[in-house]
């Protein structure tokens, strides 16, 4: 039996290839994701190991709320360093700085691009240093800097030239005295590093008298773990004490958990592509089983059992799955650098060296490829077993249908709809995976019952109606359009399944597009309503967590024409009763109320002035999900690992994404949250001055002293926000495009198989004078109709899902419903064009068919 399957396989190379690609693309994205994330993990693990070489013990801030690049004052003081040095067994201990900053050339152009971070570091004693100077030397005074090799090469900087380093202090020019190489020559993960003297680094990052890390070397005979225990006893819980290797693995695992988001994000798209692939496998198998009725009948007459027939089809799925899995795996390994490039082009620079292929990648890719293919081919295989031996003798023997389920004909569709809504809600609210999985499983069972029921009623009425509606687009083209229309509904079930594959992709694109448009409209409306200032000053880096110096606000206040400036900072905190971080916004109440209209649910601007160092305004959604009331006292863990008492003073609505779950005063943030820098400065002008008068002056100040910052008017700010959403949208579109491509293969496959079935008909058409061009046109129209049916279904499902999600989860939150009509129309055009592309190969085959085939008698 297996040999027979293998032979059949070789005879149908094109179909096998087309079908295998349907599954291989999804597997490729999956394998590519694993390879990419494993490679990044491995690269970072190498970096962390090098960075802790020669470090017996490392002391870092505890950061139980997680690592945040946004500037926090370090809890590590000079006094702690003295304590460590005094601990028995310590040979040497040194404090160092390693904090994100901004590097620019003397013309003010950034030296690092995209999302690649740049770090301001300090020189450390030789035994702790992971950089070596390849040219020149390390800095010895406050005017000198040494930079990493990659940055120097990229920007063509040489020893003796000047560059600007900007941190929390106003930007300053330094002379480059050294070019450094990290560790054993490996890349420093795409990041840039500028090494200053310790005192200068402390001054620049605004942490004078403090360190980001203390490196400790043990005396001979003292074990790192023994020393760690001793030091631990000396220091408070705000700092963490680890051995060098513990630190390396801690940093590696932190990074892995950060990367797991990226992995999950990409895998979602891989799964979507696999679902689409499964549709195609199912459809292809259904069609081929129908076409091979005679062959199965013959095998049955020759004595093959039902089980043998079933096995032959299942084996075919198995082999197809193996082909798809292997092709996908290889494709994924090739795809990984492409994914990396994709993220680079969207501003996320990730380090990667070499290609890491874990056993897990191979096992999972093959298992998923084979599993999905076999499962999708199961139902057609069962159908094949019902072919009666009689089919060998006669033409056109129908495979007997299973008796349809008649019970609950009205209840099941209603239940199905309810389950669908429930599923959408579960996903939208981020309910646990188990809930989603169970809901999904129930949905699948109901869907199966529903399909079995449909065998009775007037089937596919909607598909037919749509085909006729869409057919109107091509009917005017004469007989080819008319035939295409009729052919597309000849087998409505087949057309619907083929179209469904496209529906999945289009529905998701629509959903995302509608949600994004709504979010943009919501932000725009909220900014218009809430922001009463004239200018917003922010870091110009694409990294949303990049900050601006606290000294910038006072400097802005001195610009002529500026009436008031209010700094705003973002931080995090954690309720004692919670395990997740809450977003916290810190504001300066006196100046804040002048530029920002808070939408109060409870309280007023007077409440804002009362906050002091212990009060907070709570966001409405957070208050209702945590059942908070005005007057309630909360215990909040801050990034400095202390609990502070905070009282709920007011409740407000916010759609600008400016106010966090909690809004506190900047004074409290500086004192208890270690907040050193700000995120934004809102600027208001004096009466009577124009933007043309003031913004250039602000820009001048920024260029001279704070080159990492830029100023935006409200209109520019809104455009930036839309731009950010658009680039995320573009990334999602690129990834969803894969599913659309997979569905194209489905259309190609179905068309090729249908053409094969219609050989005689096409021959007749050619015989009575239909030109090749007309045949091609007919197939193209048929494909476009199928694609548009899929597209229209997708559009409707996407819009309905978006409306459902937003009304169910965001009602009353001020979400503005908006529909990107242009984008949606373009989507339909994309679907039609996709249909045209998919039709190319089948149309050519159909046109090349031998005219004589019509006359060949059986």
């Amino acid at each position, binding site marked *: 039996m297996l040999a027979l399957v293998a032979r059949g396989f070789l005879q149908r190379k094109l179909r096998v290839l087309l079908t295998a690609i349907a599954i291989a693309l999804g597997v490729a994205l999956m394998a590519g994701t694993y390879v990419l994330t494993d490679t990044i993990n491995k690269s970072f693990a190498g970096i962390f190991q090098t960075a802790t070489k020669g470090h017996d013990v490392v002391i870092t801030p505890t950061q139980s709320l997680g690592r945040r690049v946004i500037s926090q004052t370090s809890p590590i003081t000079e006094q702690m360093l003295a304590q460590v040095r005094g601990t028995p067994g310590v040979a040497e201990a040194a404090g160092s700085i390693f904090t994100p900053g901004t590097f620019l050339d003397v013309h003010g152009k950034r030296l690092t691009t995209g999302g690649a971070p740049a770090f301001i570091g300090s020189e450390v004693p030789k035994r702790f240093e992971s950089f070596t100077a390849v040219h020149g030397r390390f800095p010895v005074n406050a005017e000198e800097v040494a930079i990493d090799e990659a940055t120097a090469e990229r920007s063509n900087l040489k020893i003796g030239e000047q560059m600007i380093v900007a941190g929390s202090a106003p930007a300053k020019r330094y002379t480059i005295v050294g070019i450094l190489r990290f560790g054993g020559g490996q890349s420093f993960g795409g990041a840039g590093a500028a090494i200053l003297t310790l005192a200068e680094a402390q001054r620049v990052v605004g942490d004078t008298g403090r360190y980001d890390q203390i490196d400790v070397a043990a005396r001979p005979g003292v074990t790192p773990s023994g020393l760690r225990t001793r030091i631990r006893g000396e220091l408070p819980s705000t700092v963490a004490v680890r051995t060098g290797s513990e630190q390396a693995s801690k940093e590696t695992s932190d990074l892995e958990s950060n990367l797991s988001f990226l992995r999950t994000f990409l895998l979602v798209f891989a799964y979507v592509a696999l679902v689409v692939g499964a549709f195609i496998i199912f459809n292809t198998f259904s069609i081929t089983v129908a076409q091979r009725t005679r062959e199965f009948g013959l095998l049955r007459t020759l004595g093959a059992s039902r089980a043998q027939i079933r096995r032959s089809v299942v084996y075919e799925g198995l082999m197809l799955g193996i082909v798809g899995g292997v092709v996908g795996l290889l494709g994924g390994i090739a795809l990984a650098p492409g994914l990396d490039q994709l993220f680079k082009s969207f501003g996320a620079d990730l380090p990667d060296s070499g290609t890491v292929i874990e056993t897990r990648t191979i096992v999972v890719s093959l298992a998923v490829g084979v599993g999905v293919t076999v499962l999708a081919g199961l139902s057609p295989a069962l159908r094949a077993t019902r072919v009666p031996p009689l089919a060998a003798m006669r033409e056109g023997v129908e495979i007997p249908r299973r008796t349809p389920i008649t019970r609950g004909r009205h209840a099941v569709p209603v239940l199905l709809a309810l389950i669908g809504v429930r599923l959408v809600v579960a996903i939208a609210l981020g309910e646990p995976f188990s809930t989603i999985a169970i809901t999904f499983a129930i949905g699948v069972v109901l869907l199966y019952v529903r399909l079995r029921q449909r065998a009775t009623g007037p089937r596919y009425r909607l598909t037919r109606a749509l085909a006729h509606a869409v057919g109107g687009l091509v009917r005017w083209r004469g007989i080819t359009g008319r*035939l295409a229309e009729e052919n597309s509904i000849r087998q409505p079930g087949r057309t619907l399944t083929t179209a469904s594959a496209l529906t999945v992709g289009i529905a998701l694109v629509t959903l995302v597009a509608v949600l994004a448009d709504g979010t943009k409209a919501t932000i725009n409306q909220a900014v218009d309503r809430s922001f009463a200032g004239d200018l917003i000053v922010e870091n110009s880096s694409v990294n949303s967590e990049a900050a601006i110096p606290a000294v910038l606000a006072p400097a802005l206040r001195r610009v002529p024409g500026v009436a008031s400036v209010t700094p705003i900072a973002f931080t995090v905190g954690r309720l004692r009763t919670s395990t997740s971080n809450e977003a916290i916004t810190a504001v300066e109440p006196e100046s804040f109320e002048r530029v920002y209209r808070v939408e109060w649910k409870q309280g007023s601007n007077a409440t804002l002035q009362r906050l002091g160092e212990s009060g907070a305004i709570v966001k409405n959604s957070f208050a209702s999900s945590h059942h908070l009331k005005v007057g309630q006292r909360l215990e909040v863990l801050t990034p400095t690992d202390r609990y502070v008492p905070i009282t709920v003073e007011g409740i407000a609505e916010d759609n600008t994404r400016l106010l966090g779950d909690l809004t506190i005063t900047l004074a409290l943030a500086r004192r208890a949250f270690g907040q050193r820098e700000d995120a934004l400065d809102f600027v208001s002008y004096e009466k009577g001055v124009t933007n043309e008068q003031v913004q250039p002056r602000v820009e001048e100040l920024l260029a001279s002293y704070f080159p990492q910052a830029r100023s935006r008017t409200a209109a520019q700010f809104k455009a930036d926000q839309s731009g950010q959403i658009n680039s995320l949208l573009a990334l999602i579109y690129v990834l969803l495009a894969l599913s659309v491509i997979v569905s194209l293969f489905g259309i190609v496959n179905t068309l090729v198989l249908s053409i094969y079935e219609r050989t005689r008909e096409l021959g*007749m058409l050619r*015989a009575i*004078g239909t030109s090749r061009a007309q045949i091609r046109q007919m197939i193209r129209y048929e494909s476009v109709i199928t694609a548009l049916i899929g597209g229209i279904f997708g559009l409707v499902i996407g819009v309905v899902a978006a409306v459902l999600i937003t009304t169910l989860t965001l009602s009353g939150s001020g979400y503005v419903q908006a529909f990107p009509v242009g984008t949606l129309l373009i989507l339909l055009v994309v679907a039609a064009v996709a249909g045209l592309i998919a039709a190319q190969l089948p149309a050519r085959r159909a046109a090349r068919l031998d*005219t*004589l085939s*019509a*006359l060949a008698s059986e």
Partner: protein
Amino acid sequence: MAITAGDGRDGYSMIVEASHLSRRYGEGEAAVDALSDVSVGFPEGRFAAIMGPSGSGKSTLMHILAGLDSPTSGSVRVAGVELTELGDRELTQLRRDRIGFIFQTFNLLPVLSADENILLPLSIAGRKPDHAWYEQLIDTVGIRDRLSHRPAEMSGGQQQRVAVARALISRPSVVFADEPSGNLDSKSSGDVLRLLRQAVDDIGQTVVMVTHDAHAASFADRLLLLADGRIVHDGEAVSTEQALDLMKSVG
């Protein structure tokens, strides 16, 4: 056998004319000569039947005469046009304008109704139907009450009558019929053959029919017999019995 009627030397003009046709399939050892040096003409307004045992080359001859297959050597002229010099585009044009087809398996499009099937050649050509001609045709073939039906809703006889109307709708120079009664019962078979006879008699339609049914051949004016790729008999049509005898003699 004497060459007499219908060979074009008695005043009829030739609609289809083939000279020295050969057709070889395959190469080398496995090569098969389906036709060897066949020359034949079909005059206007006559009904010719081509008979012959399986593998005699009768189908190949018809395919080549209709521009569906090309000869290895020799020439074919249909309505004065040399087919062997035409490309696919011109051949398609010629089939569309000059040739009508009737197939053994009817070959109606299942997705179109009877009237749409009849008008299909004109739709393909993008031409307007001649209404009087269309009305006359559907009355002649007698399917007026079936016009809105799809092929699946019609009997085989009805389907073949629709196919006859489809072949005649564009007033072709010649109609090629490939075993038109092969899939029909004797009653329907008679109906269809009478229709073809009627087309020849009433409107002077030229018809070339391939068949292995001696009774069908008896409706024609002229009988050609092929064996092993050669014409072995060409003469007046004969009765069913005589035709069967002829078949046996080559057979």
